[in-house]
């Protein structure tokens, strides 16, 4: 009962006209806070630059790490038909025997398809690759064995492939069996580990960024304690007092995000020439990509949210406690 009376009394009579004014005033207040907080940052250029440097490093490091992993994943994806098993036959096995062996393998339930690559075909493939043509000229004979490329049946499980792999290795006609899926699995496990590591790394550095922003805003609040107290005496609510600090955090996040992206662009530029040389030497069989626009905007958004959140935590903690004296 009493509570209801308080509510009714507390609400001022607000005609529509006043509401419209208030909304505009509210927007004006936000705009004012947005630019005045930027002005405050600019008023202490060295302190701001140092804070931003720490923040942008904390953001750039996990981004760079992630970029490296993303590129490594791209390389792994370029290996086609990873489940294929390459069987190199002994040199004394001729093409007719190889065909018979292939026919025998096709009868196996675990085998999907078998492609026979005679030594001439292998030699041709090598010739087409840069750098090998000259080397092959000095050879007077074809040193390559016959190769069988076996694709396990698509439904076969990984352990079935492994069993097939063991069977083939035991065959007397077989010289060497290469099972691509094995190293492929290892690579993907390494990448998975790297990705988890990057996530942990990013989370820790995000926490550090949060603490840096929180602490900076806390110092800012301490430096403006008198102003905050006066505002509270004049009837400012927590939202009003907190607002400029939240915008400060927002600016820190945005500027640090832009700086970290610039840092990454510099690293990319710095590495571009040697990377180009490296890919050229591999005949452009792989490509290295820079940070995508999507990743950049995501990183920037995350950085802005971090800045705002750090400021919100600091402001909520230190302003709620500070009743005016």
């Amino acid at each position, binding site marked *: 009962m009493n509570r209801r009376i308080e509510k009714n009394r507390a609400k001022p009579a607000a005609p529509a006209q006043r509401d419209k004014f208030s909304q505009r005033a509210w927007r004006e207040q936000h705009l004012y806070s947005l630019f005045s907080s930027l002005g405050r940052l600019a008023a202490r250029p060295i302190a701001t630059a140092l804070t931003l440097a720490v923040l942008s490093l904390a953001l750039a490091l996990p981004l760079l790490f992630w970029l490296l992993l993303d590129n490594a994943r791209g390389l792994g994806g370029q290996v086609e038909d990873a489940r294929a098993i390459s069987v190199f036959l002994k040199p004394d096995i001729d093409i007719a025997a190889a065909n018979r062996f292939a026919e025998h393998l096709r009868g196996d339930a675990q085998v999907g398809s078998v492609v026979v690559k005679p030594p001439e075909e292998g030699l041709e493939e090598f010739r087409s690759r840069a750098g090998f043509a000259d080397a092959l000229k000095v050879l007077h004979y074809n040193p390559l064995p016959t190769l069988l490329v076996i694709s396990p049946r698509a439904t076969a499980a990984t352990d079935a492939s492994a069993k097939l792999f063991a069977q083939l290795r035991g065959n007397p006609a077989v010289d060497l069996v290469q099972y691509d899926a094995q190293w492929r699995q290892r690579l993907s496990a390494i990448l998975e580990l790297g990705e988890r590591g990057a996530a942990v790394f990013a989370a820790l550095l995000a926490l550090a960024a949060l603490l840096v922003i929180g602490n900076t805003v806390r110092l800012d609040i301490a430096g403006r304690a008198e102003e905050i107290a006066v*505002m509270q*005496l004049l*009837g400012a609510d927590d939202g009003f007092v907190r607002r400029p600090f939240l915008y400060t955090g927002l600016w820190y996040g945005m500027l640090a995000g832009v700086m970290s992206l610039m840092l990454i662009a510099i690293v990319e530029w710095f590495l571009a020439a040697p990377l180009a040389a490296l890919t050229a030497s591999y005949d452009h069989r792989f490509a290295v990509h820079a940070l995508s626009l999507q990743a950049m905007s995501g990183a920037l958004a995350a950085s802005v949210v971090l800045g705002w959140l750090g400021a919100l935590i600091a402001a909520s903690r230190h302003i709620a406690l500070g009743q005016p004296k």
Partner: protein
Amino acid sequence: MITFDRVSKRYASGHEALNELSFELAAGEMAFLTGHSGAGKSTLLKLVALLERPSRGHISVNGQNLTQVRRRGVPRVRRGIGMVFQDHRLLIDRSVFDNVALPLVIAGTAREEVGKRVRAALDKVGLLKYEASQPATLSAGEQQRVGIARAIVAKPAVLIADEPTGNLDPQLAGEVMALFGEFQQVGTTVLVASHDLPLVKRMGKRVLVLDHGKLLDDFRP
């Protein structure tokens, strides 16, 4: 307009600042609060502005029972009260105009309205020409008048002042007190704490005398 009903205030330190204090100040009335230092004048004003809460008793300001106001409701109550401090509490890094505009900005008043009202308030305290100045460049009396302009710019129904002339020489003090009298004439309820009894008596308004947290006397000279 301001009602104290058997209000006691005991601080955490055990000091009893107010003891079963009751009085009523009608709307548009002006009163002085006097007594030696430590008599409870500042505590009384702090209770009105919700800077402190009473230990016992009820306080009503502007028709609102302050006991029922919770933390989130405090800013709204304060916006309805103009406050003047002995040390004026102006923000030294802002112009006179911005200082006076602060209550309006906090209340969310539209910008053109802010300009009009701030100039009207500065005009009333005779400082219109200083609107662009920094508070630090003004004299003590002028600073206090800026503080008063800030207190009345949002047209509060209640104006309270804690030793507003404490730092001023007698002539300036008289001018500042006369200013409070003018606000009462336009309908504002005014409560001024002051230990300057001769000045208070010259004003010819109601006087509440506090002693050790109790109302010792309530008279009109």
